[in-house]
């Protein structure tokens, strides 16, 4: 009998195997660190110290995590419907345009708590709009969504650079960015939250969009596991024929899932654009859309897992900065290496350890 069909308890499937994959990814990363002549243990302790050692570090960690929660949820929602959305990066980029336009229009008239909900809608709408065309092409014309979303990432990059260089740029300035938003277009920092835990936020841009991200995670959980639409999406994700047989409309479900996915990716822009730099800049997404793929895979497409994986990647990003500062031999790009290994082991080689686990488990039960 094939080991693939042997049922394993949840704690092995969702706990032990992902943990094992993660450990292997980190062991290989440690090997790379050793290869370039640094001590992996020193690097690890520096990483943890930089990310969690003081209030400012934690603030930066949670700031990065906020972006990754949004993009991770974006990838996960699409995966539940059986769609692999590689376009979160582009959708977040265009979402930034939506939220920047709202902030630019309203910041001198109203306070931030009026701007924020409208900016959330703006960012979501623009992100969803950017996901709509690939979704439509997949649903109605059978184009492969992976290819089209990759193409749309590049089209988004070209479009946004054009807009920032030719249209939105401040006249007389060289930098391709919009003007700085006034207070009404900036999201407040969460310094008070850190103070209640006895830590100081310092210069970290940890802001209100973290709370929006947690709300979004809760919303996704309700959507996927507590609504009819979520059930239809999951059915489609498991088997298209089953979905067709059950009368679930394919085109509608694909398009709705991708719109939600794009909207979530778009909302990610709130964090860097309105929460940190207070202006729209070139390449502000900085790969967060792709990190979302790793986050979603590692979190097993469950909002709770995604929040934990996002925080782990936040630690990697902030701690990685610290390591590259203290150990000049290890550059910031070490994060990409770790990320690639996590995607490889937690995603593509997901079931590599499963047969061994099954054997161990069966022996354990017998013995």
């Amino acid at each position, binding site marked *: 009998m*094939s080991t693939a069909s042997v049922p394993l308890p949840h704690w092995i499937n969702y706990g032990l195997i992902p943990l094992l994959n993660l450990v292997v990814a980190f062991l290989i990363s440690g090997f*790379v660190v050793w*290869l*370039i*002549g640094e001590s992996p243990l020193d690097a690890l302790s520096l990483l943890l110290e930089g990310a969690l050692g003081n209030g400012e570090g934690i603030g930066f960690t949670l700031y990065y995590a906020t972006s990754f929660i949004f993009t991770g949820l974006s990838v996960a929602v699409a995966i539940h419907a059986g769609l*692999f959305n*590689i376009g979160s990066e582009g959708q977040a980029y265009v979402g930034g345009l939506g939220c920047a336009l709202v902030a630019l229009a309203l910041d001198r008239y109203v306070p931030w708590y009026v701007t924020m909900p409208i900016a959330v809608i703006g960012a979501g709408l623009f992100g969803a709009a950017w996901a709509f*065309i*690939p979704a439509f*092409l997949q649903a109605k*014309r*059978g*184009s*492969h969504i*992976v*290819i*089209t979303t*990759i*193409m*749309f990432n*590049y*089209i988004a990059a*070209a*479009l946004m*650079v*054009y807009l920032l*260089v*030719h249209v939105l740029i401040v006249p007389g300035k060289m930098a391709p960015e919009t003007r700085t938003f006034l207070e009404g277009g900036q999201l407040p920092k969460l310094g008070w939250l850190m103070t209640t835990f006895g830590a100081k936020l310092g210069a970290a841009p940890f802001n209100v969009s973290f709370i929006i991200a947690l709300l979004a995670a809760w919303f996704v959980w309700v959507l996927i596991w507590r609504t009819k639409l979520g059930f239809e999406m999951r059915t489609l994700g498991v088997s298209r024929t089953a979905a067709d047989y059950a009368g679930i409309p394919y085109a509608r479900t694909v398009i709705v899932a991708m719109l939600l996915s794009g909207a979530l990716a778009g909302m990610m822009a709130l964090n860097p654009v309105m929460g940190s730099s207070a202006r729209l800049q070139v390449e502000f997404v900085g790969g967060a859309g*792709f990190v979302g*793929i*790793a986050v979603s*895979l590692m979190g097993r497409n469950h909002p709770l897992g995604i929040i934990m994986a996002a925080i782990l990647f936040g630690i990697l990003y902030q701690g990685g900065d610290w390591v590259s500062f203290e150990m000049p*031999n*290890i*550059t910031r*790009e*070490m*994060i*990409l*290496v*770790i*990320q*690639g*290994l996590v*995607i*490889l082991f937690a*995603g*593509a*080689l*997901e*079931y*590599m350890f499963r047969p061994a686990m099954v054997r161990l488990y069966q022996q354990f039960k017998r013995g």
Partner: protein
Amino acid sequence: MDYYDIFISVLSSTIRLSIPLIFTALAGLFSERAGIFDIGLEGKMLGSAFAAACIAYLTDSAWLGLGAGIVCSVALSLVHGFASITNRGNQIVSGVAINFFIAGITIVLGQAWFGQGGRTPQLSPDARFAPIILPGADAARDIPIFGPLYANVISGNNILTYLAFLAVPFSWWVLYRTRFGLRLRAVGENPGAVDTAGISVAWLRYRAVMCAGILCGFAGTYLAIAQSAAFIKDMSAGKGYIALAALVFAKWKPVPVMFACLLFGFLDALANFMQGKQVPLIGEVPVQVFQALPYILTCVLLAGFIGVATPPKAGGVPYTKER
């Protein structure tokens, strides 16, 4: 400048910019025709560029550089194969993982070994593929029309350029005129049938991804030690994805692949040429328009508005024997 001179100069940069695309798109062709999607083309190209530059720098030999580029790229192909053929993992995820890993490791190792911000040291002429001047190029230069074309476009390229154009008919021959090619195409359409005929699906697919690895090795080597004289971080700059677009554009056929790559190379060359120039009636065309054009064209094609592009049927689906 004379219009014909402009034409010649755009044409020669078209060729230069198309070569890595042709190698990479042919690589994708082998892999995808055997039913293995390969988003990792970008990473393989970048990885082989780094390996080629490192070894060429250490040994001062361009050929050893090429060898290293191919070894690196084939090794990555085997990782992709192990994940997607042996472990039946998600091919897209595996490709994405390779891209990330390579984007990071080339810079990490480059910085650790050479300390120049992720780039390799400048290569000596011996470590590079030099331009080959074809016989009579200088004498032909003064012949009207044909002369400049022969001297500046056809002659004066490096050996990898000529190999790229030879690789196109060679790939066609392998895919359509050999038993291996027939089986390779079959395994991408209906692996069950190949299995029933008693041929190993896994081994065929492994050989297909290795072919892809070899071709990507040429592409990366071209970038690092033929077109440039060093590895520069992220030097593939999305060419792997353009090659993927060209593959779709060419409907997974070798000769159209070459023309699609030449078209995308031409758009790139045109964009460089047009920068800051005025077009009558339209004014300055933003360079971003040219940059986005291959991607937009591919989406339009995929939508079926200019012909139908049908990918191999079994593409992206891991093969499971039924028990």
